């Protein structure tokens, strides 16, 4: 279960796209002579680099470092992240504090879901805060079972089970349901030798 950053990725791509288009259009206008006077006024940017002078080398090194830093930042930004696990802290009536690792709750919730016949796979992640817990879950259900039954199980049994453990309702619930695409095998294995 991974979290991507659609808006940020698209904004960065948009900035790069606009810069490339602007540079290209400017190049076309100058090369086609549509900006009178620019051809003579703008010097060839490659010419100062050709003789490998100190300033040229320093410039290339600086540009190289900047590009590498930007590339590393972009790659880190692109990588999807898992929603963070939290330690939930509850105060009892006697003032005693109880800590509950949300990772443990998530694992227990997934294992509990798998005990139901309709569920073939479950990935559960409990996050948020103690007072505003958030559930993110992906349940895979059997293809041959009525989908309404599976959805009912998730809404009426699985989610309340986790809420029961946390002692309160989720602030937000994000549930995705998949259907198992594995074909059902035969109900019984029969050895050819047994038929003879």
């Amino acid at each position: 279960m991974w979290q991507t950053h659609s808006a940020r990725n698209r904004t960065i791509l948009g900035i790069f796209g606009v810069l490339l288009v602007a540079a290209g259009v400017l190049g076309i206008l100058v090369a086609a002579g549509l900006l009178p006077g620019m051809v003579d006024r703008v010097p060839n940017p490659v010419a100062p680099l050709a003789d490998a002078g100190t300033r040229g080398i320093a410039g290339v090194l600086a540009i190289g470092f900047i590009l590498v830093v930007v590339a590393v930042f972009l790659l880190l930004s692109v990588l999807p992240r898992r929603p963070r696990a939290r330690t939930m802290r509850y105060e009892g009536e006697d003032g005693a504090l109880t800590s509950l690792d949300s990772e443990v709750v998530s694992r227990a919730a997934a294992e509990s879901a798998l005990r139901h016949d309709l569920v073939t796979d479950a990935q559960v992640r409990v996050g948020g805060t103690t007072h505003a817990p958030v559930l993110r879950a992906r349940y895979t259900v059997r293809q041959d079972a009525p989908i309404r039954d599976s959805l009912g199980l998730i809404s009426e049994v699985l989610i309340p089970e986790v809420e029961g453990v946390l002692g309160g309702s989720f602030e937000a619930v994000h549930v995705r349901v998949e259907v198992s695409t594995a074909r059902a095998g035969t109900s019984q294995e029969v050895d050819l030798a047994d038929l003879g």
Partner: protein
Amino acid sequence: MRAQRFWHVRPARSVALGVVAVLLGLAGAGCVWAGAAATRSGSWPDPLRGWLDRGSELSWSDPIVLGASIVTVILGIVVLACAVVPGRRATVVIEGDDLDAGRELVLSMRAVEAVISGSVERLDGVSDARVRFTGTKARVRVLTRMRETDGIREAAEQRVRSVLAEIPLSAQPKVDLRVTTTGER
């Protein structure tokens, strides 16, 4: 504050941005390598020296400059398209989804496709069923060995509609069903 969606989102364009990042990284690494080599030897390494010599002789009116500019514009448009075109969601919202109440309930498109194809394939005479579901439309392609396809078409369409009616989608999609006899494709 209204909760944000976690599952029912547009594609994040991670691959496109990853490609841009890798290309930038390669260009940057090339610059650093060339700069380091030039610092040691006092001249640019090959083949960069040849490219710079050729580039320093170019004028703005050279066709190569025009060509490179056109390529840059095309690349820019492709990158912009990646940023702007929304792309197809991988999920469909189902009944009970209420973001204001902090409840996001979605079914994957593949799940709907699997349920429809599995159900249609159980019909007599159907050898294969391929489904493409977009959220508003279910395109079903049924393959059969039977020459007379009217009965199969009717049964398959009825089955698809009943399966879709069972799924608590927020809006009922259109059905586009085509039956093909094996060997006629």
